[in-house]
């Protein structure tokens, strides 16, 4: 099916929109927090990476579905 490729491509784009927005929000929050409290920068960075990693994980689950669609 040709539409499977279309679905996979569109899906990947939409996933990136969501994941990029989410990670951007985390980055914004972390930047704000670090600017306000530079002494807590280390803790904020670790928490930021954890949160970003969790979003990334969710995005990868969706991307795997796209790959399955494209390979089907």
């Amino acid at each position, binding site marked *: 099916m040709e539409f499977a490729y279309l679905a996979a491509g569109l899906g990947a784009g939409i996933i990136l929109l969501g994941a990029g927005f989410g990670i951007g929000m985390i980055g914004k929050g972390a930047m704000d927090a670090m600017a306000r409290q530079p002494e807590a920068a*280390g803790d904020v960075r*670790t928490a930021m*990476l*954890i949160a970003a*990693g969790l979003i*990334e*994980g*969710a995005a*990868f*689950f969706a*991307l*795997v579905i796209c790959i399955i669609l494209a390979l089907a």
Partner: protein
Amino acid sequence: MVKTLRIAFLFCLLLMLGGFNANAEVDTETPIEPAQEVDILSKMGDRYYIEFEGLFKFYLPRIIISDGLHFYSSTKSAMNSGVFQDQFYFENPQAFEAGVSGPVSYTLVHTDDGRPVMLDMSISKHVVWFWLSGLLTLLIFGRLANKYKSGIGRETAPRGAGMNFAEVMIVYLRDEVVKSNIGEEKYLKFAPYLLSCFFIILFMNLFGLMPWGQTPTADISVTAALAITTFFMVNLNGTKDYWKHVFAMPGVPKLMLIIMIPVEILGLFTKPFALAIRLFANMLAGKMLILSMLGMIFIFMGMYGTGVGLGSGIIWVSFTLFIYALKVFAAFLQAFIFTMFSALFIGMALEDHSHDHHHEEEPDGLQPATHL
């Protein structure tokens, strides 16, 4: 400003040159011979040989479990044994008459009826690089440990750049990752696993940035193996409290448990799955990006001629260099993230939730806190 203009001018010149070339080379459509094809995907995919392009090619042993255990020193000797045959020759018997010999697809099937082998336990390229990484870690940190045992670094300051660099990383990981996620009492039991995890993954990620090198972590099987190790580390060390939160979440209505228990059990497996996919996808994406960027040179060459291809090559190669620098950063970051998530999951499994249960007994009329 002048410099920018000069660069733009040079680029235009190159484009023009390409235009001339395109006119000059219209009728050079020679069919590509199979021997000239370059296996660019070997930079990402798994192979049953190690090739140092231009130097030598080393065939790796094949171990196959199918009607008993078979061991061959290379794919070719497996084909010569008469028990197995390359799938390519089984599907194209006329290839023999054409004078083709030697392994082509490297997928072995039974010679008698062409059925696929049951279990292919062959040592492939990624496995070798994985072992190399483990060996390197053992070598470097074994020597380092001996140094610390003999007193250098404990009674005196650490000596040498390597020792200082290693100590910075180890102390940071121990304090910020292992200790802060697992807790003061139990962290020493897990520090060796997590630290070796970090360094082995780091070396594997960095191997791919060397010429002729490979990134085993760009293979889902390697990352899955690492994630399964973490899965066992988490679940074998899980406390009673941890399992109680999986199978009988305290403070949740009985009816909700029908939904909660399957979700929690699924959660046990999605955590290592995400761990594997994250490392794999990040490593593969960098490689794919570099190959696509370099591939653009050849696409431009095919479309507009050699000159444009070479001219635009300056742009693509500089983009590639940027991605390469990003990959060095990502190599460290992904190794760190894998270690941190492993530490986090282990810490969650070891956590004592006893302080949470006070909420249920508190008579202040608040809703019981949801347990995370």
